[in-house]
């Protein structure tokens, strides 16, 4: 008994230590990105879901459309209705990614769509280049000072910031899913404890009987 117990423990520990950081969870997120909704789907071990079909549904399950993820597991979707959007991707084998974007966030995207300054073609390719009064924006007249930013500039800056923090959000998501050795040992501790209690109960019963 002792020998096979020891063997099993070593087997278990060997398995655990070989790849403790890899997990198996599907991660999905979506957020408003200017005039579109942008999202990411991937596995918690850092692999992104490539070329996965993403179904978009309303809160009642009515289909609103679909989109496909790119090489980095990112997708974009242009909403047309101000309702909560449920993004679903079936990655096979019971791996279902699902994320709901609340109606307020969708409304924010739709509001920008109606904003002429926010059309995708409006911000210059360079991003932060000053657009001054040439833009049909809410800014009254030409830029009166260094602190005044046109609507298009704001959007361009927002886009740049989003691009910059994207790797960080990915890192944080992966870090949250990181299974440290403590977690694994803690789980094994729970199992030992539970079966210890079972052993105690069984032993009491045998003594009593």
């Amino acid at each position, binding site marked *: 008994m002792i020998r*096979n117990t020891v063997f099993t423990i070593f087997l*278990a520990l060997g398995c655990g230590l070989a790849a403790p950081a*890899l997990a*198996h969870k599907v991660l999905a997120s979506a957020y408003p990105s200017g005039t579109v909704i942008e999202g990411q789907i991937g596995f918690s071990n850092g692999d992104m879901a490539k070329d996965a079909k993403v179904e978009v549904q309303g809160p009642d399950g009515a289909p609103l459309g679909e989109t496909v993820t790119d090489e980095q597991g990112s997708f974009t979707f242009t909403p047309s209705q101000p309702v909560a959007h449920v993004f679903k991707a079936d990655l096979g084998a*019971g791996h279902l990614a699902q994320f709901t974007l609340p109606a307020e966030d969708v409304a924010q995207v739709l509001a920008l769509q109606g904003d002429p300054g926010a059309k995708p073609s409006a911000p210059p390719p360079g991003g932060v280049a000053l657009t001054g009064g040439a833009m049909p924006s809410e800014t009254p007249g030409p830029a009166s000072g260094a602190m005044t930013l046109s609507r298009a500039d704001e959007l361009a800056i927002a886009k740049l910031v989003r691009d910059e923090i994207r790797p960080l959000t990915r890192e944080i998501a992966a870090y949250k899913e990181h*299974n440290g050795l403590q977690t694994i040992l803690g789980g*094994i501790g*729970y199992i030992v404890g539970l079966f210890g209690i079972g*052993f105690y109960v069984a032993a009491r019963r045998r003594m009593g009987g």
Partner: protein
Amino acid sequence: MHIVDGALSAPVLIGGAVLSAGGITLGLKRLTLETIPAAGILSAAFFVASLVHVPIGPSSVHLILNGLAGLVLGWAAFPALAVALLLQAVFFGFGGLTVLGVNTLDIALPAVLAGAIFRPLIARASGVTVMFWGGLGGAFAIAATTLCVALALGLSGDAFWPAAKLVFVAHIPIMMIEGVLSAAAIALIVQVRPDLFSTLRGEPA
């Protein structure tokens, strides 16, 4: 292998939970003072085995070791695997709490079947044949688990055959790895503790 929250329909979830509860009750009755330590260790082995990943296609599969648990424990594999699945759901976010019943059934029922089919064969065999049956039992449990997963998905509206084929094909490497692992483990157990199989021979697993 773990089906996540939201992938299954409510009747499947409820059915899985009820059947699992039945299996766990049956298993707890079979859990004697002698088998509790073995159940605990196999539960712990199953708990960490899921962290060993083999990347395949868009997904990745992991070791399951349910065949080994079934071969050693029989019905007692149900509570052992259910405990490990619960902790995996809480600690690692594998699967989820609502699908716990279905996941337990998907993984523990094939384990029990493997035990029922292959344990008598192992008890009667000797030498290399023990390894053969042990390995076959380990591989069988994985194959049956993939079918159960596909069935659960199929009952919830997915097309059964494409899902079954996808899950089954993805797990062929795992079947081979677990076959070898189970064969080695069973051979070792038979060598150091032959009574584990011989004393339980008469008992329907």
